[in-house]
């Protein structure tokens, strides 16, 4: 990845992070869109796994700083997801929107799984409901929003392949 591509990727990630802190509170959906995961994946697939883990760790710390409790849970989850995304990119990843959508869905669900389990955010039935109902819904919404965001930001990203 050259410098131009890096700058463009950083710009796209910044846009997604800004959307995470502006559009998501504005929508206030029960199954909310996680633009941080989209930004994490877009950045991670262009980085080595270790760098992706650090990138995820930093994004997680940003998210944790605004959380009421469980400081460090999002950092751990995003580090794992970022590392996995970067590692799995070598296994299978293509410029396919459907595959990217599935990738986003999986990343968000895994993130929620780790975040909920490590951060002790919920227990019992609520935890089960959160993992098997709300987290998949949120992951699906995130996947759709991520695919739309990738489509909209494609002109910025295409410069990478040019």
């Amino acid at each position: 990845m050259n410098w131009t591509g890096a700058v463009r990727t950083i710009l796209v990630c910044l846009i997604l992070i800004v959307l995470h802190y502006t559009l998501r509170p504005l929508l206030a959906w029960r199954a909310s869109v996680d633009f941080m995961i989209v930004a994490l994946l877009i950045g991670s697939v262009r980085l080595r796994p270790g760098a992706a883990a650090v990138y995820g760790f930093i994004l997680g710390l940003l998210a944790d700083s605004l959380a009421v409790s469980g400081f460090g849970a999002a950092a751990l989850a995003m580090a794992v997801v970022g590392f996995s995304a970067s590692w799995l990119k070598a296994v299978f990843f293509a410029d396919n929107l459907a595959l990217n959508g599935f990738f986003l869905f999986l990343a968000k669900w895994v993130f929620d799984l780790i975040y909920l389990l490590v951060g002790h955010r919920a227990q019992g039935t609520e935890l089960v409901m959160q993992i098997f109902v709300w987290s998949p819904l949120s992951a699906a919404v995130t996947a759709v929003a991520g695919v739309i965001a990738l489509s909209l930001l494609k002109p910025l990203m295409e410069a990478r392949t040019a």
Partner: protein
Amino acid sequence: MASAARLGNKVDAGLLIGCVVISLVLLVLRNEDKEPIASALRRTAVAPLVSLQRGAERWRTAWVSSEQRQLVADSVALRAVKAQALQVENDQLRKILGLGTRLESGFVPAEALHSTAQSEETVTTLTLTAGSTAGIQRYSPVVAPEGLVGTIQTADPTMSIAILYTHPDFRASAMAPDGTTFGIVYPHRARAGGADAYMLELQGVSNRSVLKPGTPIYTSGLGGTFPRGITIGTIVEEIKTSQVWTKTYLIRPAVSPSRVTTVLVLVPQRVTQGIGNVWGAAVNLDSAAKRIAVAGDSVAKQAAVLEARARQATLDSVKHYAIDSVKRALGVPLNAADSAAAAARGLLAGAGAATGAATGAATGAAPRPQASGGGAAPAQPTASQTAPVVRDTSRARRDSLRRDSLRRDSLRSDSTRPRRPPQ
């Protein structure tokens, strides 16, 4: 190359392990230790994001509150609409209650359900919530407080269907209030769906009869379907038709079918007995009210005339009193006072103002100047000043006479003295 890749993998794994370890350490830290780190992040790197999130949440709050305000406004508007509808319904029910009170007996109240949608151009039938078990029969008249609505077409045990005067099959024998002009009322179908879709026609009126616009038309009672005296409507104008020997008039119905929600159905016994002057009573009441108003006006006029007469009489008496005073002051005989009266007329041009003085003298109170009161008022100060002047003049004259007599006495006394010879 392979060793570089292995090194890279080791670095990646090390970084991941490092991140995981740090995260776990952060997780197990006490809140007192976590908070400074989180606070430092919030103050530095996350501060712009925090401000963004705060702005977004404000927008969200404003949006939600505006929606709530809109909902409140909508509910208030809905309540206002409902209140208006309730007001209209209340008025109709009051009118129905009044009509029922006037009819006293022989009727069945029923709720009118519009068989055709009110959005349709012409309403021709109504479904009533009362039927034959309540005494309703076919051809029973359906009336509203304003007048005739229609007649029953079908009477089931619990409900009935009425045709309105807009129905093509509707007919009614009608008459003018004086009872000399008769005709048959038909629905006016010239321009169905137009502005005159709910109008009626009075057909078969004799050529000798002339009905002016605004003349009320009532059922005549002929034919036995409708009792005599139910208001149908008012004459609008004469319609030119091909009929030579009879006239046709356009009638504006008293009842608007689309607004009828509650009606009274007259039972056959009441039709036979008649309804008396139920709808004409309002007219009589209006006439009585007008007569009372006219009588009140005439009483007021009479009171005004009497007051004017009393005022004139007071002025005359004051004038005579002033003239007599002047005559006495001038020593003119009272029975030959033409010249004095002329002089007094000049002095007492505003003799009306002396009314206050005279009234004050009569009641023992001081005379009060009048702020207004016609043409006599401006002359009042002159009159009130003139009368003392007259009295003072006479008194001065008498004093002068007395002084003259004294002077004469003194002259006489002086004449007794010897004159001093001129030097």
